[in-house]
């Protein structure tokens, strides 16, 4: 039975075949089918969901989609701080079916006052090619050197280059991957901690609950980013970028647990006293059985929603930390790393394309928030009743 058929039950009485089936579908639908059916009706959440899936795929397949290596290895030393190059079809020399960009020349002579000057050479066309072979990468177990697009000679920079000549387009795609990875790792860690601490508080209740709540409340009053900063400042400078990456994810996950733990506790406290738990107990079910078959399924959907909602906060914490230089460092690409040193007047006045990645991140976080909100509404069985 496909979830598309699930609709709110038609009134009893006029029982033709179709409405009979619709009623049947509604009453026998599983919880996830019901949530999906409600979610589908929320247009903005659906659009956000499609954007989100697109961004996640972009992040995962970032090396395939980027024409150049995002690290210093793939730099274009003849085109530093270069403006974005937009492929075009026509110019003064006529049109071509294959889009092209212009090549650049870098020269230093008496004419340019002995400074390096980059000029665009409109005679030098570089044609955009699909599926070119370039630098090696691996996505999971798959090793390859195939890329979605490239140019026949030299470099192509859709979003321009930074001060060392690294391609901002490639860096942006890899930064999406980093943010998603930090978010996923952070959410996992805070989820495990929240489940344990919130679970203990909610299951035992009483004074244990009281003490745990007091500590969580105390942690929640400390402004979180200054706390991150204080902890991140301990990271030794000589750590490798991978070590930093894991450590940052771990501390972000470690500090983010109180909100989630509180939700788990509330769920447990409420569900523990529900009648279906009592019914199961009266039928002689053991504690393990009740927790596994009744309590956990009753709130997994809520927990998933909470995880989706807390995701953007973790992504933003990482961005903030990296931005001030306490988070990730250069060979790893993340939005925060890319925005470092952009507050100088030189960048603000002359190289505005440094800020293009910001748009992607606003889209990423917005998509997460809309999807999370849509999921929350869809998972709430009473949401539809009120209206």
């Amino acid at each position, binding site marked *: 039975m496909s979830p598309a058929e699930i609709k709110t039950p038609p009134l009893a009485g006029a029982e033709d075949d179709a409405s009979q089936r619709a009623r049947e579908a509604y009453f026998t639908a599983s919880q996830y089918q019901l949530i999906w059916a409600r979610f589908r009706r929320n247009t903005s959440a659906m659009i956000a969901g499609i954007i989100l899936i697109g961004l996640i795929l972009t992040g995962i397949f970032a090396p395939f989609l980027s024409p150049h290596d995002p690290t210093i290895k793939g730099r274009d030393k003849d085109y530093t701080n270069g403006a974005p190059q937009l492929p075009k079809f026509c110019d003064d020399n006529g049109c071509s079916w294959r889009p092209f960009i212009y090549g650049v020349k870098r020269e230093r002579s008496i004419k340019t006052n002995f400074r390096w000057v980059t000029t665009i050479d409109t005679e030098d066309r570089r044609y955009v090619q699909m599926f070119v072979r370039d630098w090696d990468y691996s996505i999971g177990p798959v090793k390859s050197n195939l890329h979605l697009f490239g140019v026949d000679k030299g470099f192509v920079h859709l979003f321009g280059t930074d001060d060392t000549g690294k391609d901002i387009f490639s860096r942006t795609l890899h930064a999406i991957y980093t943010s998603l990875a930090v978010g996923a790792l952070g959410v996992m860690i805070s989820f495990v901690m929240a489940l344990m601490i919130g679970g203990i508080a909610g299951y035992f209740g009483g004074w244990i609950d009281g003490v745990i709540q*007091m500590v969580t409340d105390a942690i929640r009053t*400390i402004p979180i980013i*200054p*706390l991150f*900063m204080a902890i991140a400042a*301990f990271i030794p400078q000589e750590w490798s970028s991978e070590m930093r990456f894991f450590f940052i994810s771990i501390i972000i996950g470690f500090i983010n647990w109180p909100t989630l733990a509180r939700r788990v506790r509330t769920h447990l406290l409420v569900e523990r006293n529900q009648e279906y738990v009592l019914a199961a107990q009266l039928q002689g079910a053991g504690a393990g059985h009740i927790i596994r078959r009744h309590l956990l399924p009753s709130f997994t959907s809520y927990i998933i929603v909470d995880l989706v909602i807390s995701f953007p906060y973790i992504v933003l914490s990482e961005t*903030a930390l990296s931005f001030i230089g306490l988070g990730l460092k250069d060979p790893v690409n993340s939005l925060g790393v890319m925005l470092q040193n952009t507050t100088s007047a030189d960048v603000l*006045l002359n190289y*505005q394309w440094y800020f293009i990645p910001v748009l992607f991140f606003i889209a990423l976080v917005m998509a997460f928030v809309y999807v999370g909100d849509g999921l929350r509404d869809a998972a709430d069985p009473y949401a539809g009743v009120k209206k």
Partner: protein
Amino acid sequence: MLHFARFAVIRAAMALFTLLLVSLIVFTLMELVPGTCAERYLAFKNTQGSGISIADIEAEERRLGLDRPFLIRWGSWVGNVFVHGDFGDSCILRLNINDLLGDKFAISAAICFAALLFAYLIAIPVGIIAASSKSVLLNGSLRFVSYLGLAMPNFLLALMIMLVSTVLWGDSLTGLFSPEYRDAPWSVAKFLDFLSRAWLPVFILGWSATAFALQTVRALMLDENGKLYVTAARARGLYGRRLLWRYPARHALGPIINSLGFDLNRIFNELPIVAVILTLTEAGALLLESLARSNDQQLAGAIIFMLTATIVSLNFLTDLALALIDPRVRKSVMGR
């Protein structure tokens, strides 16, 4: 009145206890920084040309009391903070932290509270209007703005505003004071200059909080608007603004007061980063400086503790205010 006093005392004790816990967390963090104060003092002496030995470090540790157990050192730190308001000396700058912070913390707090005020001045009326309006466009765009408050955090907004203002006007609008007033003592002219520049940080710091408060106010009002007592009031012929202010708005006020503390937390959260972007010279920037560049754990700990203490006291005050304003809470507190 006696009941209220008892409530206030219990609540104050709870706030103090929270502060103690926070101080323990902050102090532990300070201790985790590699190297002690004694080593830093002597490292400085070392750069001056005199050789140092392990015995010197140990003597210095004894002089500073660093050889005592952890809990006793925490006790004396907390005691000094609570009794004398003294955070001790910064190891790196070797100055008293209170002198170092001076009016900087007051300026930070003033900016943040102004941002909080700004957030609610906008959020309350707009939220109430949105909740009672059926316009899909208004509600949809409000939701968009609220989410944007999360997706475009204060420091990104600050960056974007700098970008736009630099491109359009060639001025990045940064700094808290004009150059001529930067080190001048406080005067009317300096204060006016401060006001003319402080509006931008206030707006930027208030931005996320405004977006969240809008959502809170709207959701609360929607909840209250659907309740039967509103329908009953409408049936008796009340309508429009009179109805809104008399019934649902008053009921929604309690949770709004309760959310003040969280919003202040949200504002403090990004204060250091915004301060650095906008080159404000106040405590937030000092915190970042002490953490990122000089590893000055005493100063950083003091600032984090002061930020948290401000939030805890605000929470205490809002709880008291709630007990006075809301008859339901008042009854449960005062027993009548």
